[in-house]
């Protein structure tokens, strides 16, 4: 029996190298758990039919002595990442029959390394949501407590790892869609620097914000994935060339800024208590903690809910019932559009398309969109300035713990507030990581979040590993 609960990429790699078990043994161990749990949890929408063939291919690479650390490692991927020849539906009815005609850049790279992609995981429709309840394919449940949500929008990818149905997974973030589910499921989630991982082959939601983001049980696992995929892709014009990826690194990265004023209210008392304890622990091992002020970041989520819908309304105009995806018959072209989009999009997607259409329309453009873009520039600037003084910025990952299935569905703003601490990193493009920081009185995971300067992911990994030791998690 392989102990999937405590497995890490490094441990699995070592066992595969030594022949303790084969790739097929490892993959079958996960498939057994999937068979037992997926019906209830609904983490996966599809298990790919070529999983065993992928495992055998990986085994050949290992047997030939040419393996990479990721060879044979079982991955789950979010349903908005293209995997050639397989359905990618982005959790939407409008793409229920869409088969990817090419591989996303990140998939191409993972294939080269011989990973095993087990299947595609459930998500909020077009990544719009914070609880994986808006998918056209049903809700995903939290493996830690199936009466609760796993967070979202990458809830399926989080539940797959938390429920031992994959060793690691790839989600995507636009605003907290990996960090928040990582928090709700007790995982590590990394949102890399914008431009670090290619967006090529990712079904876009907000182009200026989206970033492929890994989940793992340990900092070391997400670090390995990040390092394997942080590459320049000339087919993505927002992918940053390697020579431009320079982080301001200091010798002593021991100064943490805490913007206390951002979470004076609206944070669950147990979350707050845990955050203070975590900060105290870091202080005890020599970190200097300073109070910082980020006056514009206070408006991050409001700015996000103007900029993102604007990008959504533009992006989702491509789903027209004409070129691919769900299509309804109509008497004329306009009717095909109206009916296909009317039936194909769910409630949240429609809401955001219309909101985006509104903030971009004549008469509101300056008041909303243009203003939000200016506020975003201020946020970028103040975060960059903060990093001249501190090495890291810490906040709770989410203001609350995993909530019950069905909650917040009738109150969009309450749902949006789950990502209040996520927004500054997505708007400014800096990397950010969510780390398990304990459990509340009901046994639900709590999480600590760090932000670091652009391309200073290494600082996140360093503090993350130190924190794991402090928590006694490794």
């Amino acid at each position, binding site marked *: 029996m392989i102990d999937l609960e405590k497995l890490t990429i490094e441990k699995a790699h070592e066992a595969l190298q030594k022949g303790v078990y084969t790739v097929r043994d490892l993959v079958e161990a996960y498939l057994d758990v999937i068979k037992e749990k997926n019906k209830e949890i609904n983490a996966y929408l599809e298990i790919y039919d070529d999983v065993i063939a992928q495992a055998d291919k990986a085994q050949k690479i290992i047997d030939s002595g040419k393996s990479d650390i990721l060879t044979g490692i079982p991955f789950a991927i979010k349903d908005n990442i293209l995997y*050639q*020849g397989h359905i990618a539906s982005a959790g939407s009815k409008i793409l229920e029959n*869409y*088969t*990817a*005609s*090419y*591989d996303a850049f990140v998939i191409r790279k993972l294939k080269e390394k011989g990973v095993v992609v087990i299947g595609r995981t459930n998500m909020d429709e077009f990544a719009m949501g914070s609880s994986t309840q808006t998918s056209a394919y049903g809700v995903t449940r939290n493996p830690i407590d199936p009466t609760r949500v796993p967070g979202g929008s990458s809830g399926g990818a989080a539940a797959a790892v938390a429920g031992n149905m994959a060793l690691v997974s790839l989600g995507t973030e636009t605003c907290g869609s990996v960090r928040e589910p990582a928090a709700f499921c007790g995982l590590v989630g990394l949102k890399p620097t914008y431009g670090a991982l290619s967006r090529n082959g990712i079904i876009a939601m907000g182009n200026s914000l989206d970033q492929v983001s890994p989940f793992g049980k340990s900092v070391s696992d997400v670090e390995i994935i990040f390092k394997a995929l942080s590459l320049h892709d*000339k087919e993505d*014009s927002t992918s940053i060339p390697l020579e431009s990826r320079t982080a301001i690194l200091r010798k002593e990265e021991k100064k943490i800024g805490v913007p206390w004023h951002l979470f004076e209210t609206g944070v669950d008392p147990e979350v707050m208590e845990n955050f203070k304890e975590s900060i105290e622990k870091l202080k005890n091992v020599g970190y200097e903690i300073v109070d910082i002020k980020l006056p*514009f970041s206070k*408006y991050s989520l*409001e*700015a996000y*809910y*103007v900029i993102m819908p604007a990008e959504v*309304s533009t992006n989702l*105009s491509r789903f*027209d*019932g*004409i*070129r*691919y*995806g769900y*299509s309804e018959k*109509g008497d*004329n*072209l*306009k009717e*095909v*559009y*109206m*009916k296909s*989009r*009317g*039936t194909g*999009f769910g*409630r949240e997607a*429609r*809401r955001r*398309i*219309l*909101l985006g*259409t*509104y*903030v971009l*329309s004549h008469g509101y453009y300056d*008041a*909303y969109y243009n*203003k*939000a*873009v*200016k*506020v975003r*520039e*201020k946020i970028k600037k103040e975060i960059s300035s903060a990093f001249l003084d501190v090495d890291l910025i810490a906040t709770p990952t989410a203001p609350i713990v995993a909530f019950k299935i069905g909650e917040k569905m009738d*109150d*969009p*703003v309450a749902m*949006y507030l789950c990502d209040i601490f996520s927004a500054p990193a997505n708007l400014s493009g800096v990397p950010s990581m969510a780390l398990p920081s304990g459990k509340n009185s009901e046994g639900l995971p709590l999480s600590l979040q760090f932000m670091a300067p652009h391309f200073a992911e290494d600082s996140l990994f360093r503090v993350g590993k130190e924190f794991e030791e402090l928590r006694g998690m490794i």
Partner: protein
Amino acid sequence: MEIKDVEALAELAKIELTQDEKEAILKDMGGILAYVKVIEKVELDEEEPVYTLENRWREDVAEDRDFSHELIVKQFPDSQDGFLKVKKIL
């Protein structure tokens, strides 16, 4: 916002909505707009932001891609002789 505004937006966005859906969206939009409206009141100094982003283009020459022509054509809801078929526009 009123129901006729929702109708106008749905028309622009080419999304058919039932009466119930229109009313539900109107209610949701009220809450969301009340929330994002704060952005209008944020005080910025006079200084205009300097955008440092630039477009990056590639030369207009054919390059190899692993797109499968067959898979792309297979996605068309309606096709004829390997071409996408659409309703008459004019």
